[in-house]
């Protein structure tokens, strides 16, 4: 029979309706999958009891090998074994060449400039390689949970741009996984510790992995994590600790600096073992060939001090970038295997003046948090106070251009995603049949100060008088921050839409600058907006009056009346080019007043024309 899990009170699922969802940490070096079972979020082990799946894929002519075996084959079969594919995700071939790393692969350029790796199975894109890793994790999870997954939450670094996020999503789709959400890795770590249950506060995530270091400063408000700043060093990690120990061994043993690769590997292995031993012991014994030695914890700490200092410097910078003080950080979460080193914990504790959170295995904490989120998103948590958690926000407002070059915000910044907002717009001129939709991002009032994301045209609006058409523009941002905009004329049903990537290419620094500009220029912007609005009103009135004069001026106005109107038109024209909003407003009113009688006469004439020569009966019908 099916195996059961313990549910929250009153939430036992219906038979066959358990919604299985997992969290996946798709890492540069290692990946893992976790799930919530009987209220506990835990990683899922493979048949051999291994939780960690090395992110290594080796292509054979007839099969694909993923994990430890592939990793070990990397030096024997470098062309067909792909390591650290995460670094290539969402990058163009030009970017990859600029990464400045000596990658052993033969790259070929595919469509859309994506780099493909030439293997015995033909060219493989980074997306396909990642999908092969995800497939293994998916099979493992389905075997362990006893059913098909409804979806997965996959974590990505906070600094991943839209292209990288989209590539990750594509990889998941290719692996047959439904992505419930892409979740920032630091956010996942914070969720694992239940920090999202607090009301608010600033959290720092210190993530020291094998080869990279990331620091993220998050602000929690009402269950939503906002990334205030990220920083780090893409070439700093536990591997560097090993190299430092190996270097020390070379010195102590009096070896020559240029060792053959085999010797180098055995040195590094010995160094890594010593590093791990020093987590619990004060002294580690080392041997290499005939040489034997002892490494004290004190000596080891001195060796890694320069690297530690670099990471702390990055922390201080991130805190500064976030615009906060060190004391404001209320919790520090440790992520990554290298944070097991006692000296690292101590240094981080000293910097933030508080004990970092280390209870959850630092290699698993991200996947564990992702699994908790996945369970919630899959709809398994319906208790009170445990509403669907929304964990990401839009960094800058999204909107569109309206007449006069103004930015009309449709979705304000810091709105949690996913979100959909609709706003109705109308035509500006009589008989207008097309409308340009210009999608913008930014906080300023004038479009010239905002960032243009996309333009598209809605055609086929039936001709109507200005203001009669109703065009509903819907902005939708999905959980991964991808924006789509649709416009629909409600009477005729014509529609047009576009998909855009809002934050594409915007760094955190640029976002911060755009925000600060908007605060600094708030006053000016408001004046500019009011002026533009008055100019637009005036322009509209002018066009309407002139069209009316053209049509009925001769027939319905005497010479004096006509002169009076023309004088007011002339005056409004002159004022409009200036920047005195109040004067424009008053003159617009004046023109409206002098044309009131004319407008009334035109209306009468139209009604008369419509009724002329018809019997009462006809009209009543």
């Amino acid at each position, binding site marked *: *029979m*099916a*195996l*059961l*899990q*313990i*549910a*929250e*009170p*009153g*939430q*036992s699922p*219906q*038979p*066959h309706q358990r919604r299985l969802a997992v969290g996946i940490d798709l890492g540069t070096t290692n990946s893992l999958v976790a799930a919530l*079972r*009987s*209220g*506990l979020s835990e990683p*899922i*082990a*493979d*048949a051999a009891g291994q939780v960690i799946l090395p992110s290594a894929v080796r292509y054979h002519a007839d099969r694909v090998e993923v994990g430890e075996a592939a990793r070990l084959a990397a030096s024997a079969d470098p062309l067909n074994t792909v390591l650290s594919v995460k670094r290539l995700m969402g990058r163009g071939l030009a970017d990859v060449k600029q990464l400045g790393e000596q990658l052993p692969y033969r790259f070929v350029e595919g469509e859309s400039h994506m780099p493909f790796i030439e293997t015995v199975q033909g060219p493989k894109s980074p997306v396909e390689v990642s999908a092969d890793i995800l497939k293994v994790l998916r099979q*493992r999870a389905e*075997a*362990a*949970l*006893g059913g098909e997954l409804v979806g997965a939450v996959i974590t990505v670094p906070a600094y991943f741009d839209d292209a990288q996020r989209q590539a990750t999503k594509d990889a998941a789709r290719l692996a047959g996984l439904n992505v419930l959400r892409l979740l920032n890795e630091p956010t996942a770590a914070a969720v694992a510790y239940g920090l999202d249950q607090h009301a608010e506060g600033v959290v720092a995530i210190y993530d020291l992995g094998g080869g990279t270091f990331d620091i993220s400063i998050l602000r929690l408000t009402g269950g939503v994590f906002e990334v205030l700043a990220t920083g780090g060093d893409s070439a700093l990690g536990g591997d560097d600790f090993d190299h430092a120990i190996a270097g020390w061994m070379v010195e102590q043993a009096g070896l020559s600096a240029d060792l053959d690769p085999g010797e180098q590997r055995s040195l590094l292995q010995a160094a890594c073992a010593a590093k791990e031993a020093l987590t619990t012991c004060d002294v580690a014994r080392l041997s290499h060939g005939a040489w034997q030695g002892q490494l004290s914890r004190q000596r080891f700490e001195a060796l890694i001090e320069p690297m530690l200092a670099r990471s702390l410097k990055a922390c201080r910078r991130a805190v500064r970038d976030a615009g906060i003080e060190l004391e404001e950080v209320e919790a520090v979460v440790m992520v990554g295997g290298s944070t097991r080193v006692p000296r690292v914990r101590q240094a981080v504790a000293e910097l933030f003046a508080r004990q970092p959170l280390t209870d959850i295995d630092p290699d698993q904490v991200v996947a564990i948090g992702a699994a908790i989120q996945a369970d919630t998103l899959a709809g398994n948590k319906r208790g009170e106070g445990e509403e669907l958690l929304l964990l990401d926000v839009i960094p800058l407002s999204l909107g569109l251009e309206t007449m006069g070059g103004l930015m009309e915000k449709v979705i304000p910044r810091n709105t949690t995603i996913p979100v959909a907002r609709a706003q109705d717009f109308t035509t500006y001129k009589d008989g207008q049949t097309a409308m340009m939709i210009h999608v913008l991002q930014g906080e300023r009032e004038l479009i010239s100060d905002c960032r243009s994301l996309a333009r598209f045209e809605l055609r086929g609006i039936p001709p109507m008088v200005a203001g009669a058409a109703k065009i509903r523009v819907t902005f939708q941002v999905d959980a991964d921050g991808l924006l789509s905009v649709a416009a629909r004329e409600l009477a005729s049903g014509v529609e047009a839409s576009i998909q855009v990537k809002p934050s594409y290419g915007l760094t955190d620094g640029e976002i911060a600058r755009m925000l600060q500009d908007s605060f600094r220029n708030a006053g000016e912007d408001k004046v500019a907006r009011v002026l533009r609005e008055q100019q637009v009103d005036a322009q509209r009135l002018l066009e309407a009056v002139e069209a009316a004069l053209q049509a009925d001026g001769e027939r319905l106005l005497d010479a004096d009346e006509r002169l009076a109107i023309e004088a007011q038109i002339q005056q409004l024209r002159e004022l409009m080019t200036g920047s005195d909003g109040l004067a424009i407003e008053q003159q617009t009113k004046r023109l409206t007043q002098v044309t009131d009688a004319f407008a009334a006469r035109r209306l009468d004439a139209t009604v008369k024309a419509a009724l002329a020569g018809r019997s009462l009966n006809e009209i009543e019908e």
Partner: protein
Amino acid sequence: MAISMTEAAAQHVQRSLEGRGKGEGIRLGVRTTGCSGLAYVLEFVDAADSEDQVFETHGVKVIIDPKSLVYLDGTELDFVKEGLNEGFKFNNPNVRGECGCGESFNI
């Protein structure tokens, strides 16, 4: 009338309760639902109801309402691993038939 639990099940319940940070024990029960008529309920308990019966095995409280007890009398709750899959299993002597997957049953 009695309900019992294997040691493996008790240990796992204990661990789950600790991980959850609250709860008196677990509730076993049946609901009339599912393709074969009845389905098992397995939930954490924060507060037992006055009519509930409480059994204690291996230091873990098993809480059950009187209506469900009729269907579950003599049941042993087990925790098993089948390949990578692991979870709880009701060894219920009263069951006469199950649906294919065993998620629901009849008596």
